[in-house]
């Protein structure tokens, strides 16, 4: 083992039916180091981590830990925990029916009995030290997602661990919470804990990490010191090609400007739903790309859900091309040419066990109706068309969608909606949790569609993506529309100040 290394993974192989997820991957983590693990979706980061934490068993290769002479055998998450490897996963892996304190301590303390008093006191201490707004005795399910994620982090760092794995822990956290997390990571680093940090946010990598390991297509690209690897190079290493796509996007933006004076395709007045948004007005023109922005929980998703009729509508009218239409259910919206790509891909988007083909035709099929099934041949034709058009990486159209990588799943879903030939496409966080390459593909696609006359709403947590694609931004705060920015006002600063509420 290398000096100071706490963890060494050597020559790790892992394959799933039809996919070689990891091939001869080496990974080394030293004491007191924050090590970013980077790569596109499907590059094998998650697989590597799941091998390390015992969720998957590796096909071959060795894992060495400091203090163990021989390679260690990790067969279950329990083994990993006992060996001092603690993990925070991207999806929250806590039990919603247990109390906050139980979630922090279950499965990691020894002994037979359960001392509630002591446990609650300990939990309160951790909650307080991390400033998490929850009570130890509260049922976890009643906490917000961000709080749940912080609790998971609290649990992981409280363990006396040598290796801490953070697998995209920040996607549901707001900036303040991310700051808290970073401070925590630095404290642990000072104590000599090795931290593996997986994220899609480049800013965060450059803020806290010391080293970067890049994976691509299940293979190791290399390990780099952070100061020796500028962003552009990191991105090109991840993608495996030099990249000037960013500038491409900018240049395309001009093509749809001429549609500015059209009347709105869709407009809504006084719309509100039972998801808790305040009344809002809204319009979109033909060929326009607009966006909803605001902090997490500001109501931007609820707004578009209301337009699509996904939540129960409690008031307001929607007009299409000036004529009032009734949209109370998603099917109404679909029939009126609206398509909606939901924020939570796994929960609301994919139908996991169904094939890529069925996933692609689903929306169109529903629109055609119960008695007009799409024939198998036609379905294959549609599927192949969109697999090619969006360059979806899949073994075949019959592969279950759940075995595709996140980015490709997202593309299938976009294909599903494009197949319905919508006039208005709503994309809610289409780029979340997917790799840089696909992110750029999607942004380009949005602009292309708009230039062909489709109206698009594009929502993203990353402001620069919104600035790049949208010509008009609706700004939200506390479930209310607080402003609208377009033209010259579309700058980072202006958005921030509108979100914050100062009218300067």
């Amino acid at each position: 083992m290398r000096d100071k290394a706490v963890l060494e993974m050597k020559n790790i192989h892992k394959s799933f039916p039809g996919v070689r997820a990891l091939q001869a991957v080496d990974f080394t983590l030293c004491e007191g180091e924050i090590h970013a693990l980077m790569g596109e979706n499907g590059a094998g980061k998650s697989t590597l981590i799941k091998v390390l934490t015992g969720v998957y068993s590796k096909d071959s290769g060795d894992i060495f830990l400091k203090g163990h002479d021989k390679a260690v055998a990790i067969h279950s998450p329990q083994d990993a925990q006992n060996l001092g490897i603690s993990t925070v996963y991207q999806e929250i892996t806590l039990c919603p029916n247990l109390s906050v304190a139980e979630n922090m301590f279950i499965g990691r303390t020894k002994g037979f009995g359960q001392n509630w008093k002591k446990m609650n006191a300990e939990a309160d201490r951790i909650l307080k030290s991390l400033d998490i707004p929850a009570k130890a005795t509260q049922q976890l399910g009643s906490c917000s997602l961000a709080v749940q994620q912080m609790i998971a982090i609290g649990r992981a760092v409280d363990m006396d661990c040598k290796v801490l794995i953070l697998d995209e822990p920040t996607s549901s956290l707001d900036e303040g919470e991310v700051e808290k997390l970073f401070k925590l990571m630095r404290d642990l680093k000072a104590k000599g804990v090795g931290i593996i940090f997986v994220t899609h946010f480049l800013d965060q990598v450059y803020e806290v990490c010391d080293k970067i390991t890049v994976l691509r297509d299940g293979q190791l690209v290399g390990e780099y010191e952070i100061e020796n690897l500028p962003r552009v190079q990191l991105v090109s290493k991840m993608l495996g090609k030099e990249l000037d796509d960013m500038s491409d996007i900018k240049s395309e933006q001009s093509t749809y400007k001429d549609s500015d004076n059209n009347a709105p395709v869709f407009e809504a007045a006084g719309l509100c739903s039972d998801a808790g948004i305040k009344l809002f007005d809204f319009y979109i023109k033909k060929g326009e790309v607009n966006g909803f922005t605001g902090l997490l929980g500001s109501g931007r998703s609820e707004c578009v859900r209301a337009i699509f009729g996904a939540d129960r509508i409690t008031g307001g009218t929607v007009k299409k091309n000036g004529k009032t239409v009734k949209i109370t259910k998603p099917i109404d919206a679909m029939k009126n040419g609206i398509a909606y790509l939901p924020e939570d891909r796994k929960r609301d988007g994919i139908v996991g066990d169904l094939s890529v083909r069925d996933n692609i035709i689903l929306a169109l099929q529903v629109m055609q109706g119960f008695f007009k099934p799409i024939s198998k041949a036609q379905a294959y034709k549609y599927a192949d068309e969109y697999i090619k058009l969006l360059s979806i990486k899949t073994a075949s159209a019959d592969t279950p969608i759940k075995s595709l990588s996140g980015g490709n799943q997202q593309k299938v879903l976009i294909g599903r909606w494009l197949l319905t030939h919508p006039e208005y496409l709503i994309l809610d966080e289409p780029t979340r949790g997917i790799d840089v390459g696909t992110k750029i593909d999607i942004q380009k696609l949005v602009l292309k569609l708009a230039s062909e006359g489709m109206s698009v709403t594009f929502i993203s947590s990353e402001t620069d993506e919104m600035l790049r694609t949208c010509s008009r931004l609706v700004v939200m705060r506390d479930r209310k529309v607080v402003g609208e920015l377009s033209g010259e006002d579309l700058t980072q600063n202006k958005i921030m100040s509108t979100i914050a509420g100062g009218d300067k």
Partner: protein
Amino acid sequence: MKDMKTKFSVKNIFRNQIFIPIAAMLLLLIFNLILDPSFFKVTLGYNSAGNPVLSGYLITILDSGSELAILAIGMTLVTAATGGQDISVGATAAIAGSVILRVLCGGNSRPEHMQAPIIVAFLVAVLASMLCGAFNGILVAYFKIQPMVATLILYTAGRSIAAWINNNELPVISDESFSYFGGFIPGICIPTPFLIALLCIIVTVLVMKFTTLGLYTQAVGINEHSSKLNGLNPIFIKFITFVILGVCVAVVGLIKVSRISTINYSVIAKDIEMDAILAVALGGNALGGGKFNMTASIIGAYVIQCLTTTLYKFNVQSDALPAYKAVVVILLVVSSAPTVRAWFTKTWAGITAKNVKEVG
């Protein structure tokens, strides 16, 4: 190259869902063939009414398995859409049967003639068991109660309701034509229940082909949230699967009462729910919902009947029957369990690899 191809197809056969029930069926048939080939004898004879009828063990299987096959159709849909099972089908079949008798007898427990055409009685029974299905469906789809629990209600109350419909009397229909549905239609030597089952299967195939029921139920069963955002109405789809099962149950009720021309409230269609669920599971369908294979379920139903008939043939007491059934069921589900299958595939791969080496 050629070898590669055969290997692939072998693998595919193992992976195919329909492999399990067919293999089980073949195994049972081979077992019978070895022990007593007379199992396969089919003879054409005449029944007491002088009509030509086929008889033999195979015919018995086709005949008695009909109810199960019909139920398996509805049960598969319910399982796929709701991820749960309806355990009230036996009790609902009792209700349906009771309704048929009530309409046919019109209050008189030993009528000389039927008081209403059979088709009317049947339609009323269909309505009644669709109502039962709708009741289950509302509880499951609208109140979001787990299917097994929701249907526990009718499971508990169903037979009591059936008895109440006929004031706890046991009406007997003496009209010959009523017994056609559970026996033989004059001039046709194939048992009617099998023909009815066949009809149900054909209708199902047509429905599957000309509607999107299959895709919708699977989508709802796999991901309800997502289906909703794709314009489906999961509540309605779950509800409708229960209603469809209700129709299947009514058909079963008709066959059951027609077989004996009367009804026994506590025994009619007893434990059939368990067999129907078993048929779905034997077909390799996940009881947790989602993807399904209707053909596999129907074959599964006949496998169960085949097993039952085989056991009867070997003079197993009817009360002891379940014990043997249980052993076979366990063997089947264990051999199709993913972990066991993975182990099996691995070993198989090891053997073939070894063989290749030896040959090479």
